[in-house]
């Protein structure tokens, strides 16, 4: 009997997650993106403790309306006298929550359907994939609009609408990955040593499908934020006076000449957030590919 130290602990190596992390942070874009995302998350979590929603974010101060950026109002005030900077800070909550929740919905539904289609094939796969194709044919935004119109415009319905619009992507990518992995020899090897099908799916197939799905998640969050903002811009998202970035863009439309900062700052906020997620998503794609090693 060997000594009490388990050999697996004696020769501990960096886990695969740590390995991916190290590769990720070598990419400068990813570092920038992660930094921005961290700031946003902290902001979204902490803003309620710092700002009072009623007095500082939605209260109207007509006397202070349309003030250009100054020391008192870092990004100026809008046409109803509300401080844009504070509204932006608060708006992060909406954008991030819609982004994350909608993708979570799409992930749950999409990967399940995709995995079933990929693993079982045949008629089930055909039904799922053809239905998905129908959804693919409808433009993202249009579908979200239809759903919001049917259900009513509020934050929850926004999340559902954007989520459903993102499902087809996840179905397709999950099915494609499952198909490839399913045919690998190590799955056959696993059968040969006596594993049952369920164990094979969870133990071998799913872990090897994660990479493309993770990348898709990051990229879809970016796109979900844009869709949500677009809906709000069109007046179909979170209802006023909520400081959702898209609505803020819409509000500032009438004042573009002369008071462009009202649209500029929310627009920049959306852009930077989406950029951050895209940078991380791209870098993740490279970091997760083990063949890129040499």
């Amino acid at each position, binding site marked *: *009997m*060997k000594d009490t130290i*388990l*050999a*697996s602990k004696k*020769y*501990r*190596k960096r886990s*695969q997650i740590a390995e991916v992390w190290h590769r990720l942070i070598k990419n400068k874009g990813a570092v920038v993106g992660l930094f921005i995302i961290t700031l946003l998350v902290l902001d979204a979590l902490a803003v309620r403790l710092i700002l009072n929603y009623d007095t500082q974010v939605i209260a109207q101060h007509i006397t202070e309306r349309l003030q250009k950026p100054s020391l008192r109002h870092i990004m100026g005030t809008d046409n109803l006298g509300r401080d844009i900077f504070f509204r932006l800070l608060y708006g992060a909550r909406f954008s991030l929550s819609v982004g994350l929740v909608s993708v979570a919905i799409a992930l749950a539904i999409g990967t399940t359907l995709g995995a079933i289609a990929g693993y079982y094939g045949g008629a089930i796969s055909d039904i799922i994939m053809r239905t998905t194709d129908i959804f693919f044919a409808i433009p993202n935004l249009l579908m979200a609009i239809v759903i919001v119109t049917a259900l009513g415009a509020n934050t929850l319905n926004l999340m559902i609408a954007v989520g459903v619009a993102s499902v087809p992507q996840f179905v397709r990518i999950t099915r494609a990955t499952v198909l490839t992995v399913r045919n*690998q*020899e*190590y799955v*056959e*090897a*696993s*059968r*040969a*040593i*006596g*594993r*049952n099908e369920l*164990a094979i799916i969870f133990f*071998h197939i799913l*872990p*090897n499908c994660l990479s493309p799905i993770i990348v898709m998640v990051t990229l879809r969050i970016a796109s979900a934020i844009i869709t949500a903002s677009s809906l709000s811009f069109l007046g179909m998202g979170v209802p006023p006076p909520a400081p959702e970035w898209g609505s803020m863009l819409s509000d500032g439309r009438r004042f573009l000449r002369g008071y462009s900062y009202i649209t500029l700052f929310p627009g920049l906020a959306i852009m930077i957030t989406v950029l951050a997620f895209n940078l991380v998503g791209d870098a993740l794609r490279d970091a997760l590919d*083990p*063949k890129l*090693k040499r």
Partner: protein
Amino acid sequence: MDDIILEVRNLKKYFKTPRGKLHAVDNVNFSVVRGKTLGIVGESGCGKTTTGRCLLRLVEPTSGEIIFEGTDIRKLGRWEMRKKLREMQIIFQDPFSSLDPRKTVLQTIQEPIIANRLIRGKAAIENRVLELMETVGLAERLINTYPHELDGGRRQRIGIARAIAINPKFIVCDEPISALDVSIQAQILNLLKNLQRKMELTYIFITHDLSVVNYFSDEVAVMYLGQIVEKAPTEELFANPLHPYTKALLSAIPLPEIGSRRGRVILKGEIASPIDPPDACRFAKRCECAVGMCTEKAPQLREVKPGHTVACHLV
């Protein structure tokens, strides 16, 4: 009386394709004696790999009997078959794709032990894995490495350790060394031979390399387009090849000696299609000695000398 551990009767595997039925394995018969090695030799498309897979029912045969230690395993239900798999294992050709890239050496080798619930307790399982690693020649310090960090030879050793983890009686070796460098091939062959002696294993060794099969098997079956065309004890086959294809195959091996290519038989043409083959000798079109009967009727395997069977009208 020989102790026959495996007997295969009338094994067939047909695949349905849009162009017709593909006869991958067409009426294959053989038996293997316990503790010995049967080599199955042939080129790509001859059906040897499919045959190997059929023996473990990784590919379900279309028809036929596979009798392992007296039981026809084709008749077994799923759960019973999984139990049988404790005694019958397989080593794959490609040491890269046959290992899960996300599993460490430890996780890969312990999987059969865990799946079959033979040992319990993390420490006990790990000890068994270390034992296996030592048996196949893997250094202890590699226990947490991933396949892509290792070379082909070491990866193949992982595959072998996995196959012997639960002490099987019988292993199908599907071209286990084709993907390896020459000096590593020799190392792995020696390892397999030692394991056979130590663990009293029976092997079916599938390969396209005749010099390897000469070294490694007791009996050889030559396959062509899904059928066994000749079968004999190794020394006999190499000394007296009877089937024209066997002769061509033997003469085609480039030997590492100067002046060895005298009398080489160069086959003309290409391999025929395995889809809906007619009732004729499948080798006839490429055969130098073919006569009329060869294209009219399929030859049957006949024993022309003790232990030496051949399927050819001209023998």
